[in-house]
């Protein structure tokens, strides 16, 4: 049956229990290639494209636009041209006969946990088992949910941690300085607390600068670096975005700012804006963000550049070509040993907008790290 592939509703993040079919990008009979956008699905939180799992022909739309389907439900069938229709009919019938939607509440899947690091609360989510460990570090104003398209796929055969940095998500909001050193110390403390001697660090934006800081201060703890739209490589940054984000206290102020994070504006739905607004209202968040801005930026530019650290351990850079927060040109001039991947269709949130590609790049890079 390797020539027939079922396309199913993915699970994006912990709270997703169903998806709405928003639009098909391909019609039955179209030739499709692995990794192409096949169909847009929306959850309560976010809309995204489901990618084609294999090369072949899109033989069937099983779901139509507007369908509300549970996780794992059948969307369509990819198969080679020579596979007879009868065989596809049989597969669809068999799928539906055996399909049991997973109850969201009874899922029993991994839930975020809380651990004390240096007397402060840190929330984290751990998934998967394996000898390789990954640590996912979100950016300024983000939280562990920023990795909702990445953590589960990367956790196949690996132990993957995502945490809320201090001042962020549901971790303690108190920051002493807001500098990279403080964030890095918290991450190292977290690694101690979960008994993680060394890990592959995947950092986005400010989280990448935090990863670089750790690579400089504690090289033995870092097996490799994947820097996604990273801070720390050049002076220039969209400081208006950062200041605007820290100051915004209503949906109308926040929405145009969040739109700058994505190449595809449709990804900024109301729920996403609401979730960020709810975070921003929490006591201590505005202070934490302002403290971070004053510590890490001066005169509208990044204060600490850590380019020299990039060549010292296995490292790769992934950048959305349409990044409006940090210019992708800052990846130029890095050591020749450091692969730089530009993703044409993505903005600053490349790991959300081009999740499958980013996941593939991370998985294959880590596999090659000695």
């Amino acid at each position, binding site marked *: 049956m390797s020539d027939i592939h079922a396309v199913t509703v993915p699970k994006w993040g912990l709270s997703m229990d169903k998806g709405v079919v928003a639009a098909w990008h391909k019609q039955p009979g179209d030739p499709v290639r692995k990794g192409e956008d096949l169909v847009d699905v929306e959850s309560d939180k976010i809309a995204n494209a489901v990618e084609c799992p294999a090369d072949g022909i899109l033989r069937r739309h099983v779901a139509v636009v507007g369908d509300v389907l549970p996780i794992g439900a059948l969307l369509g069938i990819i198969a080679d041209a020579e596979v007879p229709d009868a065989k596809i009919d049989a597969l669809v019938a068999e799928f539906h006969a055996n399909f049991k939607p997973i109850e969201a509440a009874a899922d029993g899947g991994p*839930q975020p946990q809380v651990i004390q690091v240096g007397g402060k609360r840190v929330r984290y989510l751990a998934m998967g088992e394996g000898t390789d460990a990954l640590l996912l570090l979100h950016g300024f104003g983000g939280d562990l949910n920023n990795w909702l398209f990445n953590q589960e796929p990367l956790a196949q055969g690996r132990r993957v941690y995502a945490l809320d940095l201090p001042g962020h998500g*549901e971790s303690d909001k108190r920051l002493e300085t807001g500098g990279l050193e403080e964030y890095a110390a918290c991450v190292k403390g977290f690694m101690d607390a979960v008994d993680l001697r060394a890990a592959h660090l995947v950092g986005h934006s400010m989280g990448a600068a935090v990863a670089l800081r750790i690579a400089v201060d504690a090289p033995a703890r870092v097996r490799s670096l994947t820097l996604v739209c990273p801070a720390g490589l050049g002076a220039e940054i969209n400081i208006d975005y950062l200041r605007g984000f820290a100051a915004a*206290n*209503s*949906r109308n102020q926040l929405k145009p700012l969040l739109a700058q994070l994505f190449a595809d504006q449709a990804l900024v739905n*109301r729920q996403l804006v609401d979730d960020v607004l*709810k975070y921003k*209202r*929490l*006591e201590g968040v505005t202070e934490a963000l302002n403290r971070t801005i004053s510590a890490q930026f001066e005169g509208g530019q990044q204060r600490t550049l850590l380019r020299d650290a990039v060549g010292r351990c296995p490292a790769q850079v992934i950048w959305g070509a349409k990044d409006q927060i940090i210019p992708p040109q800052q990846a130029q001039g890095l050591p020749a040993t450091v692969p730089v991947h530009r993703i044409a269709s993505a903005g600053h949130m490349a790991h959300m907008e081009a999740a499958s590609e980013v996941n593939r790049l991370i998985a294959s890079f880590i596999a090659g790290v000695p």
Partner: protein
Amino acid sequence: MARQISYQQAINEALRQEMERDPTVLVMGEDNAGGEGSPGERDAWGGVLGVTKGLYPQFPDRVLDTPISESGFIGAAIGAAAAGMRPVAELMFIDFMGVCFDQIFNQAAKFKYMFGGKALTPVVIRTMVGAGLRAAGQHSQMLVNIFTHIPGLKVVCPATPYDAKGLLIQSIRDNDPVIFCEHKMLYGLQGDVPEESYAIPFGEANVVRDGKDVTIVTFGRMVHLSNEAAATLANSGIQCEVIDLRTTSPLDVDTVLESVGKTGRVVVVDESNPRCSIATDISALIAQKAFGDLKAPIEMVTAPHTPVPFADSLEDLYIPSPAKIRAAVQYVVDYR
């Protein structure tokens, strides 16, 4: 955000966290300390429906039982606020406000204005509103409009546990007198509420559902009935935008007008009696400021112009229902 608590627990948590944060916050009202000073179990009650239960053991000096004299203890709360405290007074039912009107609208609401901005009155009056509890005409009214009418008062009507906590924290920190209206039928409603403290700013409506065809403007418990109607209407292809005003004073005019600019069709849902209500106020505002956007007359879904009836069957008819909201939406959609 994984934690769910009830609307009632969210209010209790807001009080607790603000009392922990600010030693000038105090809680007072009938049985708020559970009958302190009389024999029997301590912290037995916590207000008539138990909203303040558990606060007295933690803050024995700042949770006060009051006599059954609204005119007395509301006046005391207002005076304490003028003298630098941040009292949260529980006035069991908004229906009982009549006996302390002078304290509220002639005194508390006026101090800042009449003393040249030098006197602040950071008092919160928590009170139950709305019909549905089979409690008849003197315990069921939706008198939000009367307080919205008075300059100097702020009026808050949370619809969800998340909003109840964030809006009450904002109410306590606000330097003006706030009438905080808790819908008695929502006390058991569960919802996601962060454990951490947070404040929701006043005058910021919440667009709880996006739609392009009809704007439903509402607040309080009616948000849920409007959502229910909107969900049904979506099945027949009518997309309603549901706006929860959250605070009727200050009022988020911009969000309402922006939505009307998009849809051109409006239904206002208000549990109050129809004359001189939030429904008439919002309708007048839209007619005045967005007349050119309108494609149909503004519809109002309200209670009738009668007291809240005691008979179950009549009370059910009295309260706006999802069916009445659907009919109003259908009317503005079908108009021309």
